[in-house]
């Protein structure tokens, strides 16, 4: 009865692994690749362990089930020190083997990935607000909302923070996630090695609009990127504080581009209160979502796109 179980397991693995490209196992940058290697390493070890346990279980169940002609019954066995040591030491060895690459990768991910071009990392401040992502390029002095353009083959340092609740910045194909929290700043290095559009999202629950808190990462060639920056600097509208405060309301918005950044007047990693204050300034009042007389619609409709 257990064989069918194993075959089901194996079959599912095969179908699922060959059938579709799983985002995490299909990395498009050095950070995600390191993580993918680690994941595969652990999968191999874990698969062996599962196999051993399943085999032993099936073997014992078949051999020692109550049946006629079963004469290998010994009710008084109560232990065996050698065996105990064996199955204590082997897991310790496995855990040790897995520890080294884990720790090395943890430390590696704190640093900028090695770039093909020896460029300084591009710094982008990513700020989460309910329920949108705001990207500020301090060097270039431009700001985007709900999409971010990065040059390929150049490390990007995302400095993450939040205007209100804690979110998590995640672009599966480029690398693992990191929290963004108001009043704090977390750093995350990512790098794309191929041109393309990668979907990113908030993966930490932030309330009602959480499911749609997505953004696109466009990885483009460096010259194109520079041209894009220039175009924005010259053509995009200026972000005013009033306009920015509107982003602090719990709504969904489309994609926006601005020719300056909100860092001019607030850095949420040092000012945790700004987001909620901005809501208050605009007369927003939190309401019990279960009260029947809901005054304002709870999730704002998508606003149109700017240039």
């Amino acid at each position, binding site marked *: 009865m257990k064989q069918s179980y194993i075959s089901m397991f194996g079959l599912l693995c095969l179908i699922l692994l060959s059938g579709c490209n799983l985002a995490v196992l299909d990395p498009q940058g050095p950070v995600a690749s390191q993580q993918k290697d680690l994941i595969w390493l652990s999968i191999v070890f874990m698969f062996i362990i599962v196999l051993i346990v399943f085999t032993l279980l099936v073997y014992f169940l078949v051999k020692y089930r109550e049946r006629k002609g079963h004469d290998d019954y010994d009710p008084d066995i109560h232990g065996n020190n050698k065996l105990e040591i064996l199955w204590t030491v082997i897991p310790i060895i496995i855990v040790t083997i897995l520890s080294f690459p884990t720790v090395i990768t943890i430390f590696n991910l704190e640093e900028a990935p090695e770039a093909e071009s020896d460029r300084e990392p591009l710094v982008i401040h990513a700020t989460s607000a309910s329920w949108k992502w705001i990207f500020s390029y301090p060097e270039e002095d431009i700001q985007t909302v709900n999409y971010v353009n990065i040059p390929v083959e150049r490390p990007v340092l995302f400095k993450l923070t939040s205007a209100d609740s804690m979110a998590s910045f995640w672009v599966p194909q480029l690398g693992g996630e990191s929290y963004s929290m108001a009043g*704090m*700043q*977390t*750093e995350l290095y990512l790098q794309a090695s191929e041109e393309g559009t990668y979907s990113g999202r908030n993966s930490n629950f932030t309330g009602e609009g959480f499911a749609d808190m997505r953004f696109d990462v466009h990885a483009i060639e460096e010259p194109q990127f520079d041209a894009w920056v220039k175009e924005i600097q010259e053509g995009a509208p200026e972000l005013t504080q009033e306009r920015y405060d509107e982003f602090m309301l719990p709504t969904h918005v489309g994609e926006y581009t601005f020719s300056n950044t909100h860092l001019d007047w607030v*850095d949420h*990693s*040092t000012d945790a209160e700004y987001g909620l204050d901005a809501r208050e300034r605009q007369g927003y009042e939190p309401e019990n979502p279960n009260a029947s007389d809901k005054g304002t619609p709870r999730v704002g409709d998508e606003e149109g796109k700017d240039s």
Partner: protein
Amino acid sequence: MAEKSMSKSHFPWKHIFGYIMSIVLTAVALLIALYSNFAVRTIVILIFSLAFVQAALQLLMFMHMTESSNGKIQAGSMLFAAFIAIVVALGSYWVLEFGIHLNHHE
């Protein structure tokens, strides 16, 4: 053994010793904090060590932790509690203050 000593001696030596020691330890900790020239880290370690000693004194001298047939369980419970206390208090501090990049730009 503990039972004997506590009912035989009519003068509360244990308690007086505990009381004097607790005052002395408090005073020493205060002096270290006020007047010593050690590094901050050393002072912190010193005063907290003194606090632990004093807590142990209370447990042993006043609370008779190790007496009766439950002595071992009681002592075990307190030792594990001390482990938990260190994990919770020190661990939280380590994770949230030393570890995280509390980037205050200040």
